[in-house]
């Protein structure tokens, strides 16, 4: 009963604040109810911590790392980039407003003018372009630092992705949904196969996270990305590409239609959860 109520909160939030259709609300309710029923000892917000929710040892390690996160300097760097004036004297605030806590929760969203889903990273890039600044890479570096800064600023804000009653927005959502459930690559696996069917189970040395709550804490700092020359930071689309490569599918371009729509669907499924700031992952 409690789990059903909790999942209805997620769907209800969306219906009360935005204008998403009943189909999307139904998807969210079923998605969240599945996880809450499968893991009855966990609350909706517990799923923010991904694989560390399921494994006590890994959770201890995670908590130890998060006491002195290896990414603090990069988040700080993101804050400095946010405030640093462009060549024309303006800053990012001219595009997004001054309340940094409210920036991340605005994305991903349907942009009716451009007729496509706009992610936070795409909006950052648009802001750079409109202010005559050079483009940033999509997956890491400055883009990841600023995005991580904004995710950290949004700690505690509620996720509320709206899918408006508009055929193109609905189509983008459905495309993202289909992507999530479609098997692909030589290993013939869908996102759902790992993150719904096998959530909490192991894939070699790693515990698979639940799809619920996956977007509450990106960009992430990953130990794997910190090896060799990397600084460990990466955006959500960087991770999407890595996952596709792991099932031996050719990855799509970051911030292209496929991954933007996937982000739209996946984030909507976590409606009602709160952002918990950028996080460490293995």
């Amino acid at each position: 009963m409690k789990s059903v109520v909790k999942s209805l909160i997620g769907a209800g939030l969306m219906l009360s604040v935005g204008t998403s259709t009943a189909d999307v609300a139904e998807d969210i309710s079923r998605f969240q109810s599945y996880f809450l029923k499968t893991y009855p000892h966990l609350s909706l917000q517990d799923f923010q911590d991904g694989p560390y929710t399921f494994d006590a040892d890994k959770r201890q390690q995670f908590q130890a790392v998060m006491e002195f996160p290896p990414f603090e300097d990069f988040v700080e760097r993101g804050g400095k980039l946010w405030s640093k004036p462009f060549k024309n004297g303006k800053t990012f605030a001219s595009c997004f407003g001054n309340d940094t806590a409210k920036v991340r929760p605005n994305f991903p969203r349907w942009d009716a003018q451009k007729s496509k889903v706009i992610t936070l990273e795409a909006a950052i890039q648009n802001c750079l372009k409109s202010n005559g600044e050079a483009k940033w890479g999509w997956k890491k570096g400055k883009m990841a630092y600023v995005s991580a800064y904004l995710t950290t600023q949004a700690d505690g804000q509620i996720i509320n992705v709206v899918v408006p009653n508009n055929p193109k927005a609905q189509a983008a959502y459905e495309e993202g949904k289909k992507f999530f459930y479609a098997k692909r690559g030589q290993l013939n696996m869908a996102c759902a196969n790992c993150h719904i069917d096998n959530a909490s189970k192991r894939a070699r040395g790693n515990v698979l996270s639940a799809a619920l709550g996956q977007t509450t804490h990106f960009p992430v700092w990953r130990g794997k990305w910190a090896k060799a020359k990397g600084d460990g930071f990466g955006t959500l689309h960087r991770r999407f590409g890595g996952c596709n490569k792991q099932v031996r599918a050719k990855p799509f371009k970051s911030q292209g239609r496929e991954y933007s729509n996937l982000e739209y669907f996946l984030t909507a499924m976590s409606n009602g959860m709160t952002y918990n700031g950028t996080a460490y992952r293995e």
Partner: protein
Amino acid sequence: MKKTLLSLVISVLVAFSSTGVIATEMRDAEMRDANFDWNNSMSPAGQAIEAAKAENKKAKKVSFEWRDTSKMIKKATKLAKAGKIKEAIKLAKKAKRQAMNAQHQAMVAKNAGPHLF
């Protein structure tokens, strides 16, 4: 006379060497299978590689290309250039199968959706 005889011997040796035209034809003859297009002047390796490319193009069009297929096609092309025809054809056929499987995945994906709830 001696020079003419020497030239003839060298020509025969070249023709029957691994890089000679006749040797190539004899080798290719063994590689022609049921899929070989007799109206196409391309070699068996060339045909296998082009077939793989054509199928991979279709897989890419439906957004289901696999990670390694185009690398396999490139490798098959290099193998063919190096005269390793059997290996080139084998790899090209593998790449073609991958591309066809990818297209089948795309068809199945049209009905993709949740199955546990």
